[in-house]
């Protein structure tokens, strides 16, 4: 997994609450068996003026000029700002892959849906939960300043605002922080507990043997 320490970038404002993962990446793109190739379809039905299909050439599609992603001032944005309950709905990790491939490294919102939050961390993206009043202020700043950028410092747990406008402290789970800063591979980490897993299994096999039965697919 890629590591996250300090990141500076342009802020992309998605000023809607309850953005669901069906909007982040619509279902027709979930037919892929790969982990990549989703960036052109991020927010597909908001970003283009007609329905999208897999294996289309994005350059030949009619874009929606009103959608923020298509506005030149937000080109190259890497920090996504949104409203409460971002990422609700389907567990599809394709939503995070699409954001990541597009270049989003960090997300700011008053709240995130649980599965989406966990999917972000497992892909090296940092979701930060901030008070709704701070999110309001950031939307104001983005609105008024072309090229509004932030610097997110994970080790120090602070977001630096431009032009001496101060900084915002944020909370992060210590385990997530460690994983992100080191870019840890969770499977390798868990396998260091292999003995504890085997000991658990030995114990449980005595208590609840039916949970260790082989499933005969012919039965």
């Amino acid at each position, binding site marked *: 997994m890629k590591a996250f320490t300090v990141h500076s970038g342009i802020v992309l404002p998605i000023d809607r609450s309850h953005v669901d993962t069906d909007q982040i990446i*619509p279902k027709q793109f979930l037919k892929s068996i790969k982990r990549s190739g989703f960036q052109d379809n991020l927010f597909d039905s908001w970003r283009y003026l007609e329905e999208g299909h897999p294996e289309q050439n994005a350059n030949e599609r009619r874009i929606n000029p009103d959608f923020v992603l298509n506005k030149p001032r937000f080109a190259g944005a890497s920090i996504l700002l949104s409203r409460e309950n971002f990422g609700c709905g389907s567990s599809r990790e394709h939503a995070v892959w699409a954001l990541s491939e597009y270049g989003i490294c960090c997300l700011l919102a008053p709240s995130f849906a649980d599965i989406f939050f966990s999917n972000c961390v497992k892909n090296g993206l940092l979701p930060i939960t901030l008070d709704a009043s701070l999110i309001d202020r950031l939307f104001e700043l983005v609105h008024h300043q072309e090229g509004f950028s932030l610097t997110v410092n994970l080790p120090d747990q602070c977001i630096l605002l431009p032009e001496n406008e101060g900084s915002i402290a944020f909370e992060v789970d210590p385990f997530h922080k460690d994983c992100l800063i080191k870019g840890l591979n969770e499977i390798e980490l868990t396998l260091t507990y292999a003995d504890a897993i085997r000991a658990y299994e030995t114990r449980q096999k005595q208590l609840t043997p039916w949970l260790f039965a082989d499933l005969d697919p012919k039965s």
Partner: protein
Amino acid sequence: MPKTLYDKLWESHLVAHREDGAALIYIDRHLLHEVTSPQAFSGLKEAGLQPWRVSPNIATPDHNVPTVKRELGIQGIEDEISRIQVKTLDDNCRKFAIPEFTLEDIRQGIVHIVGPEQGATLPGMTVVCGDSHTSTHGAFAALAQGIGTSEVEHVLATQCLLQKKAKNMAVQVDGSLNTGVFSKDLILAIIRQIGTDGGTGHVIEYRGEAIRNLSMEARMTVCNMAIESGARAGMMAFDQTTFDYLQGRPYAPKKEEWESALDVWQDLASDDGSVFDAQCSIDAGDIRPQISWGTSPEMVVDVEERIPDPKQSGSSADLHTRALDYMGLEPGQPITSVYLDRVFIGSCTNARIEDLRIAAKVVKGRKKAKNIRQAMVVPGSGLVKQQAEEEGLHSIFLDAGFEWRAPGCSMCLAMNADKLGNRERCASTSNRNFEGRQGYGGRTHLVSPAMAAMAAVVGHFADVRELLQ
């Protein structure tokens, strides 16, 4: 100290506790389908890893499968990309010796219907699947949660999940549901009350008299939509109803093991005096048939109500205006004045035998209304389909002009050929009314199977209680 059901399930699966607060939780059952597993299997292969254990895994294709021409098997999937995805699941299951109910198998179906039906979901288990509606299995007093693909790979490789314990939330449902009001109405009413993020960070336990009186099928409908209120898992205590449902299921324990399992399962309820971090209560007797009007599962009205006016929606005004615009509805319009183009009875929420019986009861002796272009019934599994056919339910639907399809997720998420056209309006027994969920530009109204059936024969929304009382 008294423990909640979630506390008990968490503690009995705790493998290791880290100082930073994260824990390693053992996973007893892992359900797989074609959409969220291929990248996990690729990751496993790239890392040169084998599954930690094979037997906790069961797979079946469901999201992407056609609901017609099933006699052709995988060759009947016309869309090449979909066909490759289903074939990839078959190949991966064969390579890693994971039991799979393939397209040709009568046990194939929607993964959350197949697991319980086979007795592969048992009380006291931890259950995961790369699908947010895994919360369904919590109806069996199990800790069941949806996971992302990285976690699918993690569970395959280690049989564990790395996570922090969530908070406890109690949803108390007293009283009893009136005739013509079903568990789908109950869960929609709950979501309407607590909101789509009311359960975020929590595991919800549904409890109270009304929950105890629900069948297993109805309980699964409630837990299925826990995620629609933000809770990764929903659950209910073990009782006689759970016992009766499971006895004799193919993968349920047998003989002496069944007896010892019962001893363990009896304790699967929250202790008296358990403390919950959050609570809410609702009286089942107050609930009327529910209909969603907007683009979020919390945007719901009673059948007698009108579409709300965004001017009275406070801070949600923008959201509501946008939803009305997408749905093509006017504020103040009675919900019963809304005419439909299509009706979909199916999905992991409402495609069990009981759902089909209820819908058939409404449809019997009636005809699909002329303005309804299509009314489709998609059973949740091959076995549900078989059972319904033995009971003659399919004839009732066919005689009324409905279509009787083969099992799969179908128009719940419209990954296969079953989808709404732009601006088409659908009464649907599924779980999400998000923009485009059932097809680009499609307009979804979430309802119970009875209300969907009623809409199909009347052509617009109508109160099914008038017919059932």
